[in-house]
């Protein structure tokens, strides 16, 4: 019961913080810009991709549709949305330390584990809200503006045309997997937050780790090839697998497994640290 009360408190705090709305605002702006650009120049964009094919072939149908636009918008998940999540989740514990409220919070008859997990749950809830907002803007508004239709996806050297009737479950699975990736980032920032007493440290550290791991994951160096499959950044784009045909089930489960292991491991570290932390601020 106390856990749910604590979680409710955390939601109130997140909803009241001005910084919580930065992420929502930025997503709105980015998606708005993409929607406008596609509305104005989308056909040219499609043409740039398909012009060589169009010497011999013609693509008939509504190619530039809401599903394609939503897919393009999902690409922003790669860098932008995780960083916006971190602005809030990186502040969940360290922000209380910086503000001094941690002293009062931890003198309440709620276990530290419960407090931390309630913050985590609230952080996950915020992440979910951001994702739902992204889905709404990209899919719902996208479909209102561009209509619906099949989705053309460009993989490495294959054009995959996914039929409209199967896009529902593909997008649902993709967004679910993307949600897991974002939770991974939120967990990482929360863990760093347990080690700091200021807001900016965990946020910057999380961003630095993401950038560093992304670079390490992309380098073609033999020494790194052993660890690359286990870097969480290499699995944050796993949602794209749901737009392949056939579905690479093995790769999907592998990515989900790696992300879950990271999440559980980081959460365990966070709980351990938070429980033993001496509150001196």
């Amino acid at each position, binding site marked *: 019961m106390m856990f749910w009360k604590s979680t*409710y*408190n955390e939601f109130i705090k997140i909803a009241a913080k001005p910084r919580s709305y930065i992420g929502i605002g930025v997503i709105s702006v980015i998606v708005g810009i993409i929607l406008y650009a596609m509305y104005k120049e989308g056909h040219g964009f499609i043409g740039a991709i398909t012009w060589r094919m169009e010497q011999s072939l013609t693509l008939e149908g509504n190619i530039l549709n809401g599903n394609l636009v939503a897919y393009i918008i999902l690409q922003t998940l790669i860098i932008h949305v995780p960083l916006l999540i971190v602005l809030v989740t990186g502040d969940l514990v360290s922000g209380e330390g910086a503000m*001094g409220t941690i002293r009062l*919070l931890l003198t309440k008859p*709620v276990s530290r584990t419960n407090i931390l997990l309630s913050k985590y749950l609230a952080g996950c809830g915020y992440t979910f809200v951001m994702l739902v907002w992204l889905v709404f803007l990209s899919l719902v508004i996208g479909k209102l503006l561009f209509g619906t239709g099949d989705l053309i996806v460009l993989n490495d050297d294959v054009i995959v045309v996914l039929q409209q009737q199967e896009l529902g479950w593909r997008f649902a699975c993709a967004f679910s997997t993307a949600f897991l990736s974002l939770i991974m980032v939120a967990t990482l920032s929360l863990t760093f937050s347990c080690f700091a007493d200021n807001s900016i440290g965990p946020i910057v550290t999380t961003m630095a780790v993401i950038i560093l791991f992304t670079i390490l994951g992309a380098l073609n160096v033999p020494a790194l090839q052993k660890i690359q499959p286990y870097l969480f950044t290499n699995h944050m784009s796993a949602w794209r697998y749901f737009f392949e045909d056939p579905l690479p089930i093995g790769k999907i489960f592998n990515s989900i497994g790696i992300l879950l292991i990271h999440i559980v491991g980081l959460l365990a570290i966070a709980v351990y640290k938070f429980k033993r932390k*001496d*509150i001196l601020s």
Partner: protein
Amino acid sequence: MSDTPEKIIEIKHLVKHFGKFKAVEDVNFDVFRGDIFGFLGPNGAGKSTTIRAMLSLIRPTSGELKLFGKDLLKNRSYILQRIGCIVEKPDFYKYLSAEKNIEIFARLSGVDVSKSKVHKIIEFVGLKGRERDKVNGFSHGMKQRLGIAQTLVHDPELIILDEPTTGLDPQGIIDIRNLILQLKNEHNKTVLLSSHILSEIELIATRLVIINKGKTIVQGSVSDLLNAQELVVSFTIDNIEKAKQIVQSSSLNITLESETSTNLLLHISQEKIPLLNKLFCDNGINVFSIEAKRKLEDYFLKLISA
């Protein structure tokens, strides 16, 4: 039926090290139900560390911490439900209103606190009409009042106040003093009060402990400790030399602390004051005022320097 009051706080051989630094080496004291307990010590003595240990904000290196007869580590939730506290300065969520802040902390207090009770407590501490205002617009005094409000909202048995009058104006200090007395006398609360303002402690505390360098120096009831000491009394008189001769020649066994052109500071027990006053008057010395210097301050400084 036992008349021994219940021990609310029992601390035995409390030790806390931060790496090589020994913040608390051997702190021992007991607080009984109904006490207004003064917790004194110079800066760096370990008061804040001890208070934080009592509230499970830090883990003791060793020692025994019992509150309400139960071990703190094993009964944390049970104990903290019965405590209201301000640790150092009261900090709140600046982006939330006063009312929302109280609600948030009250929700975690383990008891159901209604919105009307929140409003009542805010009114009780003198912040009526400011419930909906964001805390970032509050003065220090207002935050202190709000801190008292969150301490009391769940009707705790034990109230721990760490420097509650810091930054308050004289009226504010009086208000806090009266509130503490009211809590003890009308609501039978137990209050542990850490303060540097020794005069305030002397006025309201029933028992106290003094620690220094992480160790307990002395503890006991205020009256017992201070009454065992001689007073330092200042006599404002019109003939210093004559008065000195009277003091030296009398059989009252009074020692001179210091003198000015108009005042004699004398070490004298309470019962000898009227006797000396009569001696001065009988010898034609006009006594304009007799003022006992702050006993506790003196006692404290003597102990610390020893």
